[in-house]
């Protein structure tokens, strides 16, 4: 799970139609490491309207500098794929990196920014907010 932002953007440049792009997103979602059932509980739920999103974070202090590790899941395939992209960006990164990396900008570069617009109540926006909040607290 260590694609740079540029590599991620590059991997999407192969697709010129939306159908292939979504198929790739769904594929990324299928490859997302499974989240234990025990973590898919109410307290880990990120507020969302159309689909459910769960997020768990652990601080890895053994790493130098310390990084944040995330696990997340959704019951919707496309959302799960978008989560996989967000985790490509943020998983295993330092709080400082997370705070300075704008997910909306990256989503825009791969043509998926409509899913992160603030009026989409799909849990993803809330997930990014929660990741940022955790990073701010850990920073």
């Amino acid at each position, binding site marked *: 799970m260590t694609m740079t932002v540029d590599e991620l953007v590059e991997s999407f440049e192969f697709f010129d139609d*939306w*159908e292939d792009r*979504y*198929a790739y997103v*769904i594929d990324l979602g299928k490859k997302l490491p499974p989240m234990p059932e025990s973590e898919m509980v109410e307290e880990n739920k990120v507020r969302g*309207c*159309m*689909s*459910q999103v769960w997020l768990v974070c652990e601080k890895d202090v053994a790493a130098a500098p310390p990084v944040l590790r995330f696990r997340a899941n959704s*019951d*919707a*395939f*496309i*959302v799960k794929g978008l989560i996989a992209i967000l985790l490509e960006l943020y998983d295993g990164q330092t709080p400082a990196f997370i705070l300075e990396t704008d997910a909306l900008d990256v989503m825009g570069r791969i043509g998926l920014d409509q899913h992160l617009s603030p009026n989409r109540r*799909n849990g993803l926006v809330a997930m990014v907010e929660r990741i940022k909040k955790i990073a701010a607290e850990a920073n």
Partner: protein
Amino acid sequence: MSAAAGAVNPVYDVEAVRADFPILSTEVHGKPLCFLDSGASAQKPKQVIDLMRWHYENEYANVHRGAYAYSENITGAYEAAREKVRAFLNAPSERNIVFCSNTTAAINLVAYSFGRGCMKEGDEVIISDMEHHSNIVPWQLLRDMMGIVLKVAPITDDGELRMDAFRDLLTDRTKLVAITHVSNVLGSVTPAKQIVDAAHQAGAKVLFDGSQAVMHMPIDVQDLDCDFYAFTGHKLYGPSGIGVLYGKEDVLDAMPPFFGGGDMISTVAYEGSTWAELPAKFEAGTPPIVQAIGLGAAIDYVTGVGLDGIAMHEADLLQYATQRLSAIDGLRIYGTAGHKAAVISFTMGDAHPHDIATIVDREGVCVRAGHHCAEPLMHRFGVTGTTRASFGMYNTRAEVDTLANALEKVKRIFG
């Protein structure tokens, strides 16, 4: 009036209707708009848009206040809209027609005013298992506030109200039956007259949530004999921000005001105030003036086209869509009542409703995904959500084909 509105041809001219809705000729993602979410909010014909714009540009002031021409004229237009609503529901008098902001506001008005003024601790309200949250939560709040009992009438797997079980719930403590006229998720049309008969025999009043009914079929509140009927303008091809509560006069008279403020009083003194006559008693503050006038224009429009014709057209769409969608492998329809409005909720294999809505959006198809503000109903069917296509007076069989083809694409993508 458009060709559609003045049509004498018994054959429904859907193309003439479509020509009256400017938004229907727009494109989304480079595809023609295929709007199948009228159950959430319907599009507006130019007759509504133009009249509202005309008022803002040419004749606007507050109502019931000024002695000058514009205020008097717009008061006339506002009250004329009330008369249109009265005729639309076949209510006995304009005193029965209370304007509010939407159905939710209308139901809350009944909960707070009838509930607090005419009910006591231990009295019962019966709802059904297929209510929108707006016909569940106000009664829960009332329960928590004053200890009423909230009972839920079950439905069958087809989505029909179980009349036997409903009758069993009625007791001499039942003061109100608050039930949807058409389910927003399942499309089921509830047996309104039977509900009223049974409830009245038990001494209970009846409120129908007509949000999903008024645009699909003619409503006659005197024939139904219901005590309250609530609906909203924006699902009836009118603007948002305007809704209606019909109430029988003696029932409304017995209810205390809910909101206090200007326009709802007769006299105000610090020692106490007296209330205005119906319906002003329930219309505190400046009302949604131009929205009410817009609702009047929407009523003119649908009655001009003819609700019987609309109902027949939509019945054909429902039948065709049910047939097309049923043929898709793995697609399951929720709501198979014998009497249904043109609403189809479904799930499709492993694809989440949110996935489905996202993919079909790329084909220009607008559908609703999620719990549809009816979480208890979702639990009843053991799903977290469904995808819903809801049809209106302007939809076509070709749009049903567009939906079916888009769903085939969903199947290809999700394998």
